[in-house]
């Protein structure tokens, strides 16, 4: 209905291949970016910026990373949190040990180290597939966490394993307010999302999807299995690593290794499933949904408490949350395996064809 596309024709391949070929989408995206970059930091309150939007963006980036590996390249990973942990601790160490380390450089080092770990644990993917691979990534999860816990170097020998993120500064501007941290996170996420989109729409992305959809055919048309799978692991881990670094630096500030337990991997996996496997937009939708859902649940339980005049225990609320999450996952897998992104796409298609039904 909102889409009035008549007269939007493409006379070059560049126009036809652009990320948002429809004018209305381009306008929508521009509006969204203006809101995110200008309106939100101006008008958003501290709580929203630091407790909701920043973690949302960080987790969206992690989900995007997992999506590259699992959604696009079809290699299931349960070790997302481990890659994030590598990113966080290595960024910390980069800041600690390299003088004059710029913060973005530290994020990149965190990402690259995660990519290296991803490569190592991606090696089995050359020989094993599917379920077996999931177990291999589980090994990564447990091993990495153990290593960070046990090897004092990672946490600069802090007795509890806890690290405190260093002060951030870009070109002399301190990044210490919630708004500044939010903006830093947003910028990094926006750039990396764009890069991911570019990657997924070019040959690399096609190769990933080919491996996912039909690996025999992929190798027959000349896609190198080993290179493609390892690349998927490396890129995915890089994204997770940067997300982990920002999780520590922009969101938590003080992190212990236990922040990156298996549960976080699952959370990111859920974000991907609910948002939509194989969709960049889906990563954001899923992260948004799962970030906002507990808040919504909290509000609901608060109003329930007020209405009934009782107090619900924390355990009750958190267990209910777990049940609902689990049930949602199953529901999405059964009803809409491609998640919110597909629903969005269907809705958009409907609007484009309106008033026709199909």
């Amino acid at each position, binding site marked *: 209905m909102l889409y009035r596309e008549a007269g939007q024709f493409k006379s*070059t*391949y*560049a126009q*036809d*291949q652009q990320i948002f070929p429809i004018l209305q989408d381009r306008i929508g995206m521009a509006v969204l970016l203006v809101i995110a970059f200008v309106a939100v930091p101006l008008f958003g309150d501290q709580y929203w910026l630091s407790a909701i939007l920043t973690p949302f963006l960080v987790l969206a980036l992690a989900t995007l990373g997992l999506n590259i590996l699992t959604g696009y390249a079809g290699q299931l990973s349960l070790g997302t949190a481990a890659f994030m942990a590598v990113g966080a601790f290595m960024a910390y160490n980069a800041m600690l040990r390299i003088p004059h380390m710029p913060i973005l450089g530290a994020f990149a080092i965190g990402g690259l180290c995660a990519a290296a770990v991803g490569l190592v644990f991606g090696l089995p993917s050359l020989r094993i597939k599917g379920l077996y691979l999931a177990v291999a990534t589980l090994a990564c999860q447990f091993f990495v966490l153990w290593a960070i816990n046990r090897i004092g170097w990672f946490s600069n020998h802090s007795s509890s394993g806890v690290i405190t993120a260093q002060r951030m500064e870009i070109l002399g501007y301190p990044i210490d307010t919630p708004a500044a941290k939010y903006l830093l996170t947003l910028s990094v996420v926006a750039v990396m999302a764009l*890069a*991911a989109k*570019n*990657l997924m729409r*070019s*040959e*690399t992305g*096609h*190769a990933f*999807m*080919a491996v*996912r*959809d*039909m690996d*025999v*055919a*992929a*190798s*027959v*048309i*000349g*896609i*190198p*299995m080993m290179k493609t799978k390892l*690349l998927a692991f490396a*890129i995915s881990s890089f994204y997770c690593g940067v997300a982990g670094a920002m999780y520590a630096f922009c969101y938590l500030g003080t992190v212990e290794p236990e922040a990156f337990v298996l549960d976080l991997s699952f959370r990111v996996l859920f974000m991907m499933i609910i948002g939509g496997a*194989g969709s960049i937009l889906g990563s954001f939708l899923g992260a948004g949904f799962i970030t906002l859902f507990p808040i919504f649940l909290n509000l609901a339980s608060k109003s329930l408490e007020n209405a009934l005049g009782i107090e619900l225990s924390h355990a009750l609320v958190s267990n209910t949350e777990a049940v609902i999450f689990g049930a949602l996952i199953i529901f999405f897998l059964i009803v809409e395996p491609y998640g919110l992104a597909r629903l969005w796409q269907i809705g958009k298609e409907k609007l484009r064809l309106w008033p026709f039904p199909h």
Partner: protein
Amino acid sequence: MDRGRPVGEVLLSVEGVSLAFGGVKALNGVSFDVYQHEVRAIIGPNGAGKSSMLNVLNGVYHPNQGTIRFRGEEFRDMDSHHAAKLGIARTFQNIALFKGMTVLDNVMTGRNLKIRCTFLEQALWLGRARREELEHRHAVEEIIDFLEIQHIRKTPVGRLPYGLQKRVELARALAAEPVMLLLDEPMAGMNLEEKQDMCRFILDVNDHYGTTIVLIEHDMGVVMDISDRVVVLDYGRKIADGTPTEVRGDQKVIDAYLGVAHA
């Protein structure tokens, strides 16, 4: 047959190839050759070893014995990736398209070996990545036009009817600009009209791009019309080799197809 390009020298020769799965011999000392720019058919009843032969030719299976020479080079353990690099493309009997992608993306994927830029350039959409992407799009569009699938260019392949999917698979194979194209029962499961279309496309490909074509087919009739020479397999052995007319008259072939008991 009226051809624009003459049939050339030997492009591929297969000598004494045997292949066994466990105790079962799928191929037993098969030898034949393929000339440049030829349409070469491998036929035979079900279970004759046709698919195994094709899988050996592009390195999906490795023969236990025998050698394969392609453009004069000998290969014992060629993997399918290597085969693709040498210019061997193929289609599959049970369509092996990438279901999650559109027709255009499927065919674009067929050009992956021609991409020179690195993934970093692609991520940043820098000059070369962008230029290559657009160049390949142009080449792919030519193929889409050639196989007359323009109207479904942006449709996810999963939504297409069977006959069109087969054509898309052919397009993907062609996108690699192969020297030799292996077609695994390209007309299986098609109605008469679709078969005729497919025959026309195969001949057009052979003619326009000069591609050498090796096809296996269960249905003898279609093959006889479009191939220059035919190899007949039965129970993993070659039982006849020659022009369609010669093969058609061969008693062993007739027996094989009529299911006469083997001695």
